[in-house]
């Protein structure tokens, strides 16, 4: 336990308001180097808000967010990408009028190393051969599953240290969900730390090391994912197995 990996992301008592609505109530969580950590919870629990606060889309009213030891509260989203904090947003955020390849290259927008970008583009096509077939097609013509593949491949183009994935299973067929999560595992094995937000607690707990459960803007409990899968509270509320 003494040689636990360093903390990469650390949230301490983060409060976020939308006008008068108190959306995050003192959220604290940490993600250590090399982990897959998942944040599960019902619709409206504050999962996406948490990610938005981390990646600079929202400014918390109070609390501390540290990434790699440095405070990133108030840093603009675009400045964090170059530091390896990369988000694949909910709803996938594909640019419909841009081709698959243009979408991927935008992912590498903050990079200048042309050979490296070309190599990572090829790697993205190797991971998702479907994207290679459709590289000059417009993003808007892809199916939901293909768009999710594109969103993940595009996030990888930024060479993330910490990858934030927001609802990657949303609206996808079970078989496609499996493909996506197999890739998530593979990306993590290559050394990318992942913070995964999911409504599908089943899949999320299977593909993560630790989990936090968020309810009404508060962390209710947390623990090792394997343990939480057998936790009666999780079973009842999120896995649909009444006790």
């Amino acid at each position, binding site marked *: 336990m003494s040689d636990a990996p360093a903390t990469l992301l650390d949230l301490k008592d983060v409060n976020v308001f939308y006008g008068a609505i108190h959306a995050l109530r003192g959220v604290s969580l940490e993600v250590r180097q090399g982990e897959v950590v998942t944040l599960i919870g019902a619709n409206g629990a504050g999962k996406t808000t948490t990610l938005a606060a981390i*990646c600079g889309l929202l400014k918390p009213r109070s609390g501390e967010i540290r990434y790699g030891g440095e405070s990133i509260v108030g840093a603009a989203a675009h400045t964090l990408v170059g530091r390896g904090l990369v988000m694949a947003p909910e709803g996938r955020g594909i640019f419909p009028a*841009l081709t698959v390849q243009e979408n991927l*290259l*935008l992912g590498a927008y903050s990079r200048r190393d042309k050979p490296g970008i070309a190599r990572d583009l090829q790697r993205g096509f190797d991971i998702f051969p479907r994207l290679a077939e459709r590289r000059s097609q417009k993003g808007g013509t892809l199916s939901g599953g293909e768009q999710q593949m594109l969103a993940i491949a595009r996030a990888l183009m930024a060479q993330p240290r910490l990858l934030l994935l927001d609802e990657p299973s949303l609206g996808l067929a079970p078989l496609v969900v499996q493909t996506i999560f197999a890739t998530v595992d593979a990306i993590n094995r290559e050394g990318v730390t992942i913070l995964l937000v999911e409504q599908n607690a089943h899949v999320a707990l299977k593909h993560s090391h630790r989990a936090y459960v968020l309810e009404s803007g508060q962390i209710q409990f947390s623990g090792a994912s394997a343990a939480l899968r057998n936790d009666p509270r999780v079973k009842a509320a999120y896995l649909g197995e009444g006790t």
Partner: protein
Amino acid sequence: MLPLLETSDLATRLLQQCANGVAKGSVYALVAVGYTRVYGVLQLINFAHSDVYMLGAYFSYYPAKWLGYMPEGAEKPKVPFYVLGLAFLFAVSACAATGMLIERLAYRPLRNASRLSALITAIGVSILLQNVGQMVFGADPKSFPRYMDQESVALGPIAVADTSLVIIVVAAAMVGALHLFVQRTRTGAAMRACSHDMRTAGLMGVNVNATVSLTFALGSAMAAVGGMLIAMDQPRLTPTMGLLAGLKAFVAAVLGGIGSIPGAALGGLLLGVAESMVGAWNTTYADAVAFVVLVVVLLVKPSGILGKSGREKV
């Protein structure tokens, strides 16, 4: 533009009007690309754009006037080409800076406000610029110095003024270059990404504010070129000259499909030609053409000729 040639041949006359219309339409196209890019990114009709066009005319007029010379025995001053180049650079950079300043001061604070607030602000900025223009430049019309012999060049059966040829060539080159920039470069891709979804563009590492500034700078630079070309061709500069030209350019952008650069170019040319045709028949109706076109487009195909209708599925 040029008066009709003395010919009874209808086809020749139509062709002649086409040529005049293309020259006119090229200027509309230059101004229309600015409307279309800004609308594409901010969903804002930047009414102040037409006044940036007016500023472009004045910003090119003053260097040309101060650096021009009076040829022996001539009635009007003349400017050598290098002065035109300087005037061009000055007008383009001053207007680009003005466009960025307008965005920074007037529109950015309203980025998240309702679109109506931004629209009203745009009208306010437009009125402000016209009045500042009257204070600084004076309300009396100014006349751009001569730079060419203003002779016509015979192209087959028709004659085109040399100044019109300059307009067509310069406008085509500028609009083409802008289109290539937006379609082929990394920064252009960032602009297109911002016009779809600024938030996600930011998540890609795109500096959204800088991209919006650049959009205004480029659009304003194009308007400056349009202003300078029209000042050189029809030397009558007034602080309100942007009003009608701006409205017509806006119609051109809507006609071609707002958001699209090729659409703006096409819309500008079509509108210019239509105006010339109607003007040949009855000059008093020429200015009305644009507004008839606007009404018809909005009724029949609001997305314009090259515009996409609706949003694609996400």
